[in-house]
């Protein structure tokens, strides 16, 4: 708008619009904005594709819509209405490994990337261009082998090399150019000198240089000193050996390199094998083959061209020169070739190997290795028979010619044997001496004869070496083969031979072949190393066992029984057993039972076992107890072991209590003493006594305070006692008679029938009176039944009957016990065998009637067996008898009781 007005004004002023001054751009930096007028909507028709969207400020919008860029698409933002948003935080905790370092490229768009790429390219090309010279120089400094290959060097030049070092940059600034030596410029003379030195050419006084030579007028940069390149020696050839050369070539000091044949033919197309190389084909870039890669404007070699033509490397040329230059020392081989420097011709001719022509192989010969093998075998058999030539045509050798010795032939011809048989020493001996010698030989034949046989091979080589010091130490150290004395002896002899070499000779054992022998020696050497006593502080702490381990040693390998082995085995296996087992068994076999067959040793029963058995453990046994126990034991013992198993007693609470009870009863007047002793010594009994003492009390309390309905099992136990009191009705009696037991026996019982009833009363009364008072004298333990009986009278009869009922209930549980005869129904377990129960009850009542003491334990023998009714004690003469009120117990008595009266009690059950 403004520019248009301006133009018009200017035009008015007479200034042409074409004036370049008008279009002069003052925009120095950046791209000038498009002319404003263009952004103005002129209202002209513009085809759609030419239309441009512009904003109020005339800026072009949506320019990327069709050209593909998104960079300024939406509101001139990066692609979204909101613009570019920073990436949201993503925790990298879980995937640290996959997290990449953010690079600048990540934040660049395509344009940036392209620009960056362009930038990089620019930089690279720059560097390359800068370095071109340097790289070439560097290539020049490389080894000769690179120079040899033009293609390689050419290729190498293409590869951008490393940047110049700071040093080279500095040098360059100081005027140095790559390829030149370092140092002040030198005149031509010196340069030639340098060349000579560097080419290792023998010193040659520089020829007179023309002062007018233009070369002399300049100073030259010194020659570059070659970097010493050492080739790695990665082969196994000798130094200076060239693998590719044959002897001739290496002697000549020449390699059949390409350079010998002429200038390098440039590699490439177009030159077939048949074509001759033209000048055009010569590799013009091949700088390596001549001139050491240096070219000068004035090549000094040209001067010598007329003298001699040098081909190949300068070094080689110089070699030839040296050869030529030493005529004095030089001599030639017979064929005219010059001798190598430093070598002299030998005066003696070399002895030549004589070669014989291969024997003629007969035409019809076929290889048959078996023939050869069989020959070998034969040879082994008869050592002294001379070997016959193996490759002889059968037709050519006579049937006997080869196989027969002269003697054999003679024998075959029937000639008399020649007298000149080799005489042995024995022939010169007197016959007596000979005999004696033979005797000696037979006695020692086993050793003397076989040893040389085995030791044909050199033994020395087979014997492993052991350091004398080690051997000496091992001799004094642990002896590893004590179980095998033979081997141990051999081991020691080996060690001795090693400790003092040369003194004793090692010979293999008889029947031991060489391999075994060497193997054994090797084993010895090893064990000597192992078992030499440890030096230092530990050394003195170990002592060799004084007892030799002579136990049977397992044999290696498969067991093959042999007669000897069998004998050995049996002797070995039996010997250890014999001293232990045999005497006993022999004694047993001979019937000498007793001390010989008995073996007594201490045995510690487990504590718990003792406890369960109710026995004092042996270790706990205290002396005072022993004293008392000894007196009591012989008396108890029969009682304790009376029943085949103890359980036969009908099972009391515990055995000891029974014992104690019996003891206490038996001891009679001395009861007090015993009781006190036992009470002090035996805690278990004491505790049980107390327990049992308290129990009846509880019953008493229950009987007193509990209501009649509350009848527990405990009361059921007491019930039998109660039943004793209850008078059996006469009607019950017949029913109660057991099926199998004759009723007549019941009254026949000696102790029970007459005595129990009257005697019973006093006992109850006495216990009634005594329990509170006389605890110390009478053991409360055994009061159970009497206590109950004591309770009974105090109760009313009705109560007792109730208790009977309850007892029946309790009995229902125990219905299967073997004690009762009525148990035939047992497995069925009828719900209410009232009749049965009543029967039982009545039976019991009846029994109670007869003999209270026996019946009670039968009901609940587990708990109350032990208590013997004191009454019976008094009645019977023998104190032992009443001790076993239980019916079951009575079975035991017959052993002691001659009358066997107790059996009747058994019959009841």
């Amino acid at each position, binding site marked *: 708008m403004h520019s248009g007005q301006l133009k018009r004004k200017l035009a008015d002023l007479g200034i042409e619009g074409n004036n370049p001054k008008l279009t002069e751009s003052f925009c120095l930096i950046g791209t000038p904005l498009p002319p404003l007028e263009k952004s103005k909507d002129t209202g002209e028709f513009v085809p759609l594709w030419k239309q441009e969207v512009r904003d109020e400020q005339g800026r072009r919008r949506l320019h990327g819509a069709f050209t593909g860029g998104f960079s300024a698409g939406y509101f001139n933002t990066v692609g979204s209405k909101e613009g570019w948003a920073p990436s949201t935080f993503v925790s990298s905790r879980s995937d640290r490994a996959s997290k990449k370092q953010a690079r600048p490229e990540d934040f660049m768009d395509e344009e940036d990337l392209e620009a960056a790429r362009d930038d990089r390219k620019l930089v690279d090309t720059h560097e390359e261009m800068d370095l071109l010279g340097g790289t070439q120089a560097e290539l020049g400094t490389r080894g000769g082998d690179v120079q040899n290959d033009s293609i390689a060097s050419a290729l190498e030049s293409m590869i951008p090399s490393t940047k110049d070092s700071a040093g080279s940059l500095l040098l360059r600034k100081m005027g140095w150019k790559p390829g030149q030596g370092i140092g002040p410029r030198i005149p031509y003379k010196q340069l030639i000198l340098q060349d000579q030195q560097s080419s290792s050419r023998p010193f040659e006084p520089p020829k007179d240089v023309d002062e007018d030579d233009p070369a002399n007028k300049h100073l030259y940069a010194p020659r570059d000193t070659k970097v010493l390149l050492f080739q790695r020696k990665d082969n196994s050839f000798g130094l200076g050996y060239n693998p590719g050369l044959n002897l001739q070539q290496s002697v000549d000091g020449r390699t059949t390199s390409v350079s010998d044949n002429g200038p390098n033919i440039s590699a490439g197309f177009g030159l077939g094998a048949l074509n001759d190389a033209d000048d055009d084909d010569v590799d013009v870039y091949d700088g390596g083959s001549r001139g050491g890669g240096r070219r000068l404007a004035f090549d000094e070699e040209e001067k010598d061209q007329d003298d001699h033509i040098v081909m190949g490397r300068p070094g080689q040329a110089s070699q030839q020169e040296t050869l030529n230059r030493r005529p004095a020392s030089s001599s030639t081989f017979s064929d005219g070739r010059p001798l190598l420097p430093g070598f002299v011709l030998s005066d003696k001719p070399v002895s030549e190997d004589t070669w014989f022509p291969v024997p003629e192989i007969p035409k019809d010969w076929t290889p048959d290795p078996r023939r050869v093998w069989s020959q070998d075998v034969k040879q082994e058999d008869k050592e002294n028979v001379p070997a016959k030539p193996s490759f002889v045509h059968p037709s050519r050798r006579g049937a006997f010619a080869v196989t027969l010795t002269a003697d054999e032939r003679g024998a075959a011809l029937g000639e008399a044997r020649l007298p000149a048989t080799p005489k042995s020493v024995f022939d010169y001996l007197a016959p007596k001496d000979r005999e004696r010698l033979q005797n000696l030989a037979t006695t020692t034949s086993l050793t003397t004869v076989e040893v040389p046989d085995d030791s044909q091979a050199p033994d020395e080589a087979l014997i492993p070496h052991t350091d004398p010091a080690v051997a000496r130490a091992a001799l004094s150290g642990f002896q590893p083969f004590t179980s095998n004395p033979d081997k141990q002896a051999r081991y020691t002899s080996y060690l001795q031979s090693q400790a003092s070499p040369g003194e004793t000779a090692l010979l293999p054992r008889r029947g031991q072949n060489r391999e075994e022998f060497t193997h054994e020696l090797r084993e010895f050497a090893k064990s000597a190393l192992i078992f030499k006593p440890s030096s230092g502080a530990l050394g003195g702490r170990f002592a060799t066992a004084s007892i030799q381990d002579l136990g049977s040693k397992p044999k290696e390998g498969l067991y093959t029984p042999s007669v000897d082995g069998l004998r050995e085995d049996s002797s070995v296996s039996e010997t250890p057993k014999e001293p232990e087992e045999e005497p006993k068994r022999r004694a047993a076999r001979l019937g000498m039972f007793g001390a010989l067959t008995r073996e007594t040793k201490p045995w510690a029963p487990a504590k718990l076992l003792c406890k369960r058995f109710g026995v004092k453990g042996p270790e706990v046994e205290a002396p005072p107890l022993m004293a008392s126990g000894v007196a009591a034991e012989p008396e108890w013992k029969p009682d304790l072991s009376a029943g*085949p198993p103890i359980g036969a*007693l009908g099972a009391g609470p515990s055995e000891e209590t029974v014992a104690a009870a019996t003891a206490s009863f038996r001891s009679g007047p001395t009861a007090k003493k015993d009781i006190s002793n036992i009470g002090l010594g035996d805690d278990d009994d004491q505790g049980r006594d107390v327990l049992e003492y308290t129990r009846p009390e509880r019953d008493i309390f229950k009987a007193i305070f509990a209501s009649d309905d509350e009848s527990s099992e405990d009361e059921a136990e007491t019930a039998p006692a109660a039943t004793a009191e209850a008078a059996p009705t006469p009607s019950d009696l017949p029913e109660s008679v057991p099926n199998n037991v004759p009723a007549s026996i019941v009254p026949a019982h000696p102790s029970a029938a007459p005595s129990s009833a009257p005697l019973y009363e006093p006992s109850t009364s006495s216990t009634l009176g005594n329990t509170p008072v006389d605890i110390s004298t009478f053991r409360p333990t055994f009061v159970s039944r009497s206590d109950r009986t004591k309770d009974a009278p105090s109760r009313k009869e009705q109560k007792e009957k109730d208790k009977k009922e309850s007892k029946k209930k309790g009995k229902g549980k125990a219905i299967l016990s*073997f004690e009762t005869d009525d148990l035939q129904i047992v497995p069925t377990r009828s719900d209410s065998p009232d009749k049965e129960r009543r029967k039982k009850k009545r039976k019991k009542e009846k029994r109670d009637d007869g003999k209270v003491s026996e019946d009670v334990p039968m009901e609940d023998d587990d708990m109350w067996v032990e208590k013997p009714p004191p009454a019976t004690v008094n009645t019977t003469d023998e104190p032992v008898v009443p001790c076993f009120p239980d019916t079951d117990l009575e079975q035991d008595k017959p052993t002691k009781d001659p009358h066997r009266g107790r059996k009747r009690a058994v019959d009841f059950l």
Partner: protein
Amino acid sequence: MPPSPVPPRTLHQTLAGHVGPTHVVRYAKGAGKYVMSGGQDRTVRLWKPQTGSQIQVYKGHGYEVYGLSVAHDNAKFASSGGDRSVFIWDVKTGQTIRRIPGHASKINTVEFNYDASVVASGSYDATVRLWDLRATSRQAIQVLEEARDAIQTIYVGPTQIISGSVDGHVRTYDLRMGELRADCLGPPVTSVLPTKDSQTILACTLDSTVRLMDMETGKLLNSFTSHKTESYRCRACFDAEERNVLCGDEEGRIWAWDLVDGKPLGPGTTGPPKVHEKVVLWIEHHVSDNELVSASADGTVKVWRGDSDR
């Protein structure tokens, strides 16, 4: 001294129920009104010898039953056999109360102690193991490992445990003394039974001999021969009065000897009649009556009674 009682020779009952050999038969404790038998057929049976009726069959063993022991109160019993565990049964319910594993091999014999708080088991693995029945511990109270061969028989006394082993030894473990007395008899011992006074011990060995040994000194008091026990376990026992010695035979006879003079008692001069078809594996005398039960490989248990005295 009254003459020794006549051994029970009258067949009272035959308890036939086992299939296969009956290995063991034991009287119940107490009055001994019942017997239990265990056999190859993996069952334990409860009989009433009086009537010959079978009361209960206890099935639970997976293998043959070799040993039985009835508890003092007859409420439970223990059995053992090829199962390698001791079974404790409830007599009433016929259920196992406890199964005690621990032996490495079949168990030849079990025995309760006097109050059934401990059960001892002797096994083919040459050990006697004592198990606590009060506690529920799975470990044996003690393992008696002195035997070098299978244990064939155990007797558990009040203060001692006696074991007989195939290694020919009778070992007496005295709890009071803390002492082990090993008596070498030589041939394998198949049964041990002390007398009631614990002074002597009756041992049956596989050299067809029953020996009466003195427990104190280990001396031989008497030996009873002329029967044949060479390869089967058989039990020797006393009669109720310990006047006679009884033992089964591999020919199916039941021998009886007078304890003192060691002469065989029997109806015939050539020995007792053959009463079992096969080898007699166990005999046990009633604790008081003149009654005898014998178990045999023919699968029967026979109850014998003396005909004279009652």
